[in-house]
């Protein structure tokens, strides 16, 4: 039986992009500096 695989672009679109985005969001949040007094 023929085996099918995702193309490279499909890998990037389906899981590499969202994973990289989530990592970036957490990294940005982590290095955003200590939270000071909230500005009202």
């Amino acid at each position, binding site marked *: 039986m023929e085996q099918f695989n995702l193309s490279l672009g499909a890998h990037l679109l389906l899981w590499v992009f969202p994973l990289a985005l989530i990592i970036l*969001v957490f990294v940005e949040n982590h290095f955003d500096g200590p939270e000071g007094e909230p500005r009202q």
Partner: protein
Amino acid sequence: MTPIDSSTMTTVAAVMVVYLGVLLFIGWRAARRTHGGEDFHLAGRSLGAWSAGISSTASSESGWVTLGAVGMTFAHGVSGLWYAPGCLLGYLVNVYVVAPRLRPLSADQGSVTLTDIITRRWGDPRNVLRVTATTIILVCMMGYVAAQMTAAGKAFSSSLGLEGRTGYLFGIIIGAVVITLVTSLGGFRAVAWTDLFQGLLVAAALIALPLYAVMRLGGFDALVQGLGSISPHLLTASGDRVGPILWGFVIGQLGIGLGYPGMPHVITRYMAARNDREVQRLQVIAMLWGVAVFYGAGVVGLVGRVMLPDLADGEQALMALALKLVHPVLAGLLLAAVISAILSTVSSQLLVAASAVSYDIVEETLGKARDDRRSLLLGRITVVVVGLIGVLVALTEVRLVFWFVLFAWSGLGAAFAPLILLALTKNAVNRHGALAAMLTGAGVTVIWNLGRDPVASAAAFGRSWWIALLAAAVIIIVGEVSKAFAPADRVAVVAAAGLIAMSWWLVQQWGLANVYELVPAFFLAGLAALVVSRITTSRD
């Protein structure tokens, strides 16, 4: 969909009733904390990160995320997922560029609506900007509200097992009554809280269902093999598109994200955040919600294509999978999630339309009802009136209004997104540039959209360039007669008409109609803002 037995339908209907009861309860709780105009229009700037974050995202994604987005991957496989990076890039700009700047600016200005932000940022002595912005918002929002009510009516009638025209009418009325009541009583706070509840329901559904469905299918590899055996195109990022059609498609899908900074029902959530720390937390919450929902919807469509080979309409895949795979109570919750995606957008748009009338027109432009209690009462009455108009339009299916829905996302996005980004990041625009940007964005959107289907609308498209010039003449005459226009405003209107006519020429000569209209309209509006500001001064 496959026929559903009556006991399943009864269980699903019972879950729906509980869901509507929760919405009404939240509305009642919010109403008890709503005491004045700023409370009603902006929840007294008291939202925490969760309600501001989820409310902003749930408001921006209407029924398309549980219906249309699912249908995209059902039809096109992995290549149908290009909407996800487009939308998520829009989220990135909104939460990292717009939100942290907009919240303090709006608090310093005392701004309540998007129109307020624009008019107070550049000054608006004769209400030219306020009337223009309010008109664009009202036209787009009323069409949107009516279309969403129609979608809610269809979803309710199918979930509750109501059949025929009577079932559809009943579905519209149930959805409209509940959401109008909740919005009218609790205003912005009720909308934000119900959005939080509904947004979490949507996210839970779009995380749990695809995971469970992939498991039932036999794992991710079984999904890949299943899709490949239907067509190998379903496993590529380009699908069966090649050349200019592929690039046009990708640019168009990525271009969806350009609209987010211009959505009044989305960015007012950032204005209502309690402080900067909540905005910082909101960034993570909104991005995670977006990734979960967009990719969850995409995977549901992919699984649906394999598991439901006989399903004629891919947009029904989520509902069909729910009824096929899980217990009726869970199926009821999943169907409630489909309706939640619609109602969370309706309530937000209803409030924006009502704020445009009661706050921007009656209070600010006409200078009436400035005391807090009268402002609250006026807001509540306006929500009911706007809701009623929405129901009437949905019931009578006025075609002209649904025609405007085609332009709603791109029209709002092009008219306001470049302007909001320029307002927050650069000091290179004056109020005449702002006027030119709004007119150009809205006008180019309409022209380009008409050009997309030149066979069906050849006559309308052919007439559109002189209609643009006629509209410009009418705007200038109204501006002159009402003595609202400064000389530089005339320059703004002429520049906008010129750019709109130029876009008509581009579509005609270069065959660019397949490019999603928001992309050219966004950049031409930004260009109009910068060029007109450069050649005029802010003095009258």
